[in-house]
C-alpha cells in the first residue's frame, strides 16, 4: 500500500496557474498570459510577425491563428491576443489552422518583392523562414506588385524599403510605445498603407537600431551593416555592452575577424532586448583604421613605433625613476573602460608599487560612499512606487535605463519626481518636476518633499533615489547635499547611483579609487599642475577631452614629466605622451564587467586584437614583471580567481557561469548612511546666467567620432537659454553671442529652449566646433556667465 502524503496531495491551487493543452499536451501557463507566449515554452511553434513579447499585442498580421475549442466548436483566434483560460484546448496544426496560416503567408508574400538574394535579412528572415515552414509553397498572385521608391533613408542610420514591408507595426509600435519617439508612423490606408516619417523630419531616435533588429523582414536596414555580411558568414558570441554603465546584454557578431553588428539580447533585469544606437553602432570604432597596432614612444617631438619589450622597459624605467623619490610621484587615472579584471590587475600593480593616487572617475562622478548606501537594482527602481530623480538626463547618458524608467512611468507602476535644472528626456513622463538653480538643490528638495502632496506620494510605498551628477559646472557637494535631504526625509529610500562610464562601478570596487585617503582625480590633476607628479598613467582615459576644467588639465600636462597612456587610439591627451601602449578594444578581450546597479556579467572576445594590442590586464602583468614586482597573473582565469577570492564584492561571481545571461549582483556591504555635507552657494548676480553643462548621447567621444555612421550626428556646440532670456539678451535664435566668466570669453551660437528655467544657461559638453571648457573652473562651486550680443 502506498502512503500518500496528505499535505502534498492537498497542496493549495496556485491562483496564478492556468492549465491548458496545446496539441493535446498539457501546458502550465500563467494567469493573463497569451496563448502564443505559453506555446513558446513548448515545442509547438506558432508562426508570427507582429507579436513581440516586449510590446502590446495588436493582432495585425493574423499569422498566429490557432483553433481554440468553444462550446460552439473550434474557433479560429489570434494567439497573440487571446489569453489562456483554465481548461482551454488549443490546436496549432489542424488542417483548418494550416490552411489559414498558409493563406496569410500567401497574402503577405503577394506584394513582397522576393528580392531575398540582395536583401540583408536573407538567411535570418522570419518571413523567409516561415514561408518555408508555414507557407503554401507557391504564389498564385499574378498581378503587378506594389511599387515604392527603393530604400529611402529615414534617418542618418536607418533605411526603409517599403516594398519589403509587411506592415506588422513592430517598428512603429516600438517608436511610440517603447522609445516615445513616434517619428515613424503608418500613413495612408488599406492597400496603400506605408510606414513613413513626417516629410523632412527624420526618424532621429536614439533607439532607431532596435527597429532594424525587430523588423521581421528586410524593410529596415542599418547603414553600418548594409551589404556587410550574410548571416551564414557570421560568428557570434554573447556579451555585455560597456558603452555606458547600464550593461545591456548583446550579441557581438563578426565576419572574417571584423566586428559587423551588435544585437540586443533580452534579459529581464536590464535591457529587455533593447540597445541604444550609440552602443549598437560604435563597434565601427573598433574597426577604425586609426587603431594603434604597436607601442609608440616619443622620439624628439614625435611618437615612433617601437617593440613591446622596449616599450615596457621604458615604462618601467619612467615609473621606477618617479617612485625613487616618492610613491606620491606616480598616479593612475582611468580604468572604467576596461573589464573588472583589467582594473584589478592595475590595482594589484599599484598596491605592489605603493601608488595610492588612482581614480577611475574623472571628477564628474560620485564619492564611493554613495555606493555603500542601501542600493537598488534597476528592477527595484522601476517597481518602486516613487522614483526620485537627482540625476543627469538619463536619456542622454544611460539611454536604456531611460527606456526602463519611461516604461515604469507610462505603465503607471511608478511615479517619478524629478529635480532638475532643465527638462530632461524623462520630463514628459514624470509625475512632478521640480526645478532648481544649480547650487540650490538641497533647499529645493527639502521644501518640496515637505509638501503634503509629496508626503502622501512617498507614503505610498518604496522610494528609490536615482542619483548622479547632472551638471559638470557644479560641485559634487550639492548633489550629495540634496541626496542627504532625500534620505533624511525618506530614511528607507534606496539608492541607484547612475554613473556614465562603462565599468566605473567595477573599476572602483576592484581598487581603482583613491587609497588611504589620498586625493581623487581632481586632486591628482592639481598636484600635477603644481609639479608634484612625475609620472602619470592614463588607463584608457583622455582627460584633455573628458575633464570639464580644461585649463587645469593643460596646466597638469605641462608639468608632468612622463605620461604613459594605455589606449586604443591617439587622442588629445596621449598625442604628446612619452609612451603609448596599444590596448585591445571591446570585442577583442574577455572578462567581466559591472553595471551601474552592481551587476557582474561577462564580456566576450570575438575577434583578434588589432596588431600587437593587448588587454589592459596583460599590460599590467607584463609591466609588473618589468618592474620586478610580479603580480603573479598567469592567465585571465587565474586573474579572475584572484579577483573573486580577494575582493568581497566580486565573490558572487566566483562561478563563471553566473556572469552569463542575467549576470549576478555584487555582494552588498552593510549599508551606511550618508553624513551631512554643508555648503552654501553664492547668490547669482541677476545679470548673469548660471551654467548647466551636461553630456548628450552623441558627443565627441572617441568611440563616436571613430564610428563613421555616428560621427555625422554630433551637433555643433551652442548655448541654450529660455526664449524669454533670448529676448532679454536681445538676440535671435542662432546668433553668435559672447559668453564670459572670470575673464575668459568664448563666442558661440545661442538657441532658445523652453525646458530651461530663466536665469539658467545650458551648454552641452564636448560637442563639435567651439570649445566651451575654458569657461569651466573646477575650483568654483558653480559657474555664472555673462551672455552678451556681438555688436
Amino acid at each position, binding site marked *: 500500500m502506498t502512503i500518500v502524503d496528505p499535505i502534498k496531495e492537498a497542496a493549495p491551487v496556485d491562483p496564478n496557474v492556468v492549465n491548458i493543452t496545446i496539441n493535446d499536451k498539457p501546458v502550465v501557463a500563467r494567469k493573463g498570459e497569451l496563448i502564443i507566449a505559453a506555446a513558446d515554452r513548448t515545442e509547438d511553434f506558432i508562426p508570427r510577425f507582429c507579436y513581440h513579447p516586449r510590446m502590446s499585442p495588436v493582432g495585425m498580421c493574423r499569422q498566429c491563428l490557432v483553433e481554440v475549442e468553444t462550446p460552439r466548436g473550434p474557433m479560429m483566434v489570434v494567439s497573440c491576443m487571446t489569453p489562456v483560460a483554465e481548461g482551454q484546448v488549443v490546436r496549432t496544426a489542424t488542417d483548418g489552422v494550416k490552411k489559414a496560416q498558409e493563406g496569410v503567408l500567401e497574402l503577405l508574400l503577394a506584394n513582397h518583392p522576393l528580392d531575398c538574394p540582395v536583401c540583408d535579412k536573407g538567411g535570418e528572415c522570419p518571413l523567409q523562414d516561415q514561408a518555408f515552414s508555414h507557407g503554401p509553397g507557391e504564389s498564385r498572385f499574378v498581378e503587378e506588385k506594389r511599387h515604392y521608391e527603393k530604400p529611402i533613408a529615414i534617418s542618418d542610420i536607418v533605411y526603409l524599403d517599403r516594398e519589403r514591408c509587411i506592415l506588422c507595426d513592430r517598428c512603429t509600435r516600438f517608436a*511610440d510605445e517603447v522609445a516615445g519617439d*513616434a*517619428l*515613424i*508612423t503608418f500613413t*495612408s490606408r488599406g492597400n496603400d498603407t506605408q510606414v513613413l516619417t513626417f*516629410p523632412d*523630419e527624420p526618424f532621429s531616435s536614439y533607439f532607431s537600431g532596435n527597429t532594424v533588429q525587430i523588423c521581421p523582414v528586410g524593410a529596415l536596414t542599418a547603414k553600418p551593416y548594409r551589404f556587410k555580411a550574410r548571416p551564414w558568414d557570421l560568428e557570434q558570441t554573447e556579451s555585455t555592452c560597456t558603452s555606458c554603465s547600464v550593461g545591456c546584454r548583446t550579441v557581438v557578431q563578426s565576419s572574417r575577424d571584423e566586428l559587423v553588428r551588435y544585437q540586443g539580447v533580452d534579459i529581464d533585469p536590464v535591457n529587455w532586448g533593447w540597445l541604444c544606437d550609440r552602443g549598437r553602432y560604435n563597434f565601427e570604432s573598433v574597426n577604425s583604421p586609426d587603431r594603434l597596432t604597436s607601442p609608440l614612444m616619443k622620439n624628439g617631438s614625435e611618437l615612433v613605433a617601437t617593440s613591446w619589450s622596449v616599450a615596457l622597459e621604458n615604462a618601467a624605467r619612467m615609473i621606477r625613476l618617479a617612485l625613487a623619490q616618492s610613491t606620491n610621484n606616480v598616479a593612475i587615472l582611468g580604468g572604467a573602460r576596461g573589464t573588472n579584471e583589467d582594473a584589478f590587475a592595475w590595482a594589484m600593480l599599484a598596491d605592489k608599487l605603493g601608488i595610492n593616487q588612482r581614480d577611475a572617475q574623472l571628477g564628474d562622478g560620485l564619492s564611493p560612499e554613495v555606493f555603500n548606501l542601501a542600493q537598488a537594482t534597476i528592477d527595484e527602481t522601476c517597481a518602486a512606487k516613487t522614483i526620485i530623480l537627482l540625476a543627469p538626463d538619463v536619456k542622454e547618458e544611460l539611454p536604456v535605463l531611460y527606456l526602463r524608467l519611461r516604461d515604469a512611468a507610462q505603465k503607471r507602476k511608478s511615479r517619478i519626481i524629478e529635480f532638475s535644472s532643465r527638462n530632461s528626456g524623462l520630463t514628459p513622463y514624470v509625475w512632478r518636476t521640480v526645478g532648481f538653480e544649480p547650487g540650490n538643490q538641497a533647499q529645493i528638495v527639502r521644501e518640496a518633499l515637505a509638501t503634503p502632496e509629496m508626503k502622501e506620494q512617498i507614503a505610498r510605498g518604496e522610494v528609490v533615489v536615482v542619483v548622479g551628477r547632472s551638471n559638470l559646472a557644479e560641485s559634487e557637494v550639492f548633489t550629495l547635499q540634496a541626496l542627504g535631504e532625500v534620505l533624511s526625509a525618506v530614511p528607507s529610500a534606496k539608492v541607484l547611483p547612475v554613473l556614465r562610464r562603462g565599468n566605473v562601478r567595477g573599476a572602483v570596487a576592484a581598487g581603482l579609487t583613491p587609497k588611504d585617503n589620498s586625493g581623487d582625480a581632481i586632486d591628482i590633476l592639481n598636484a600635477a599642475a603644481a609639479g608634484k607628479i612625475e609620472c602619470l598613467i592614463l588607463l584608457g582615459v583622455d582627460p584633455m577631452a573628458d575633464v570639464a576644467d580644461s585649463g587645469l588639465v593643460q596646466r597638469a600636462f605641462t608639468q608632468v614629466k612622463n605620461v604613459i597612456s594605455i589606449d586604443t587610439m591617439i587622442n588629445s591627451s596621449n598625442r604628446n605622451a612619452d609612451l603609448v601602449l596599444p590596448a585591445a578594444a571591446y570585442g577583442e578581450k574577455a572578462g567581466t564587467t559591472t553595471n551601474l546597479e552592481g551587476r557582474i556579467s561577462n564580456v566576450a572576445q570575438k575577434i583578434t586584437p588589432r596588431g600587437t594590442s593587448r588587454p589592459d590586464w596583460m599590460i599590467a602583468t607584463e609591466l609588473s614583471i618589468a618592474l620586478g614586482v610580479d603580480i603573479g597573473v598567469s592567465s585571465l582565469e587565474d586573474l579572475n580567481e584572484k579577483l573573486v577570492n580577494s575582493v568581497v564584492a566580486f565573490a558572487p561571481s566566483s562561478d563563471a557561469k553566473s556572469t552569463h545571461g542575467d549576470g549576478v549582483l555584487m555582494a552588498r556591504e552593510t549599508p551606511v548612511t550618508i553624513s551631512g555635507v554643508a555648503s552654501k552657494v553664492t547668490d547669482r548676480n541677476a545679470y548673469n546666467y548660471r551654467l548647466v553643462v551636461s553630456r548628450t548621447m552623441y558627443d565627441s567621444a572617441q568611440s563616436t567620432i571613430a564610428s563613421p555612421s555616428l560621427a555625422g550626428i554630433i551637433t555643433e556646440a551652442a548655448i541654450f537659454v529660455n526664449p524669454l532670456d533670448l529676448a532679454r539678451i536681445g538676440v535671435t535664435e542662432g546668433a553668435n553671442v559672447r559668453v564670459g566668466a572670470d575673464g575668459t570669453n568664448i563666442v558661440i551660437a545661442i538657441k532658445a529652449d523652453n525646458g530651461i528655467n530663466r536665469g539658467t544657461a545650458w551648454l552641452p559638453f564636448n560637442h563639435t566646433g567651439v570649445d566651451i571648457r575654458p569657461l569651466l573652473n573646477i575650483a568654483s562651486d558653480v559657474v555664472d556667465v555673462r551672455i552678451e550680443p556681438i555688436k
Partner: protein
Amino acid sequence: MSRLNDANIKLAREIIARYPRPKSALIPLLHLSQEQNGYITREAMQHLGELVGVTSAEVYGTASFYEMFKFEPVGKYLINICGTMSCALMGAHELMHHAEKKLGIKAGGTTTDGVFTLAHAECQAACTEAPTLQVNYRYRLRVTPDDLDRLIDNLRDGKLNEEFPPHGVLSKVRQSIDASRAVGAKAPEDVNESPVWLDGKAAL
C-alpha cells in the same frame, strides 16, 4: 501662413479643452486647418502636433488615413460623384463621364482655373436618391446630366455661393459651449467616483 491664425488658435484651444485627452481634438482641428487654408499643409500639421502634444508624424499618420483631408490644393468646389452600388445601378458611371466631358478633366483632376476638382466618391448615404453627388459635402440628389451642367454653370457664375462655401468649410455652425453651462472634461485618471445621479434616487 498655414499655421492656424490667432482666432483659430483660440478656437482650437476651446475644442481641445472639451476632450479628456488633447489628441482627441485632432480630427476637428485638421478640419479647422483645412477650413482656413483649403487643404492640409505641412506647417499646419506641425502646428497641430504642437497644440495637441503629439509628433508631426502622428498628425500625418492620422490625417492621411482619412479621405477628406487633402494634402495638395484642390478646387474651390470639390465635386464628389458617388459610384457605389445604388448609384452605380442608377447611372453613376454615365454621370461621371458626363462630368469629365463638361469640365474637361478626368476624375481626380482640377480645372486649370482652380475652381473645380472632380473625384470618385464612395457611398454618400443618399442611396434612394441615386445617382448622387456632393459639392463640398453638400448634396445634389437624383442628378441628371442636365442638372449637372446647370450646377456647374451656376457654381462658376457664383450663383450658389450661399449654399456652397469654399472647400474646407464644413459645418457653417460650430458648437459653442458657454462656460457657465459646461460640465468640463477631466482626464479619466482624475475621475474615480460614480456620477452623482446614480444615488438610487430620482434626479428631479
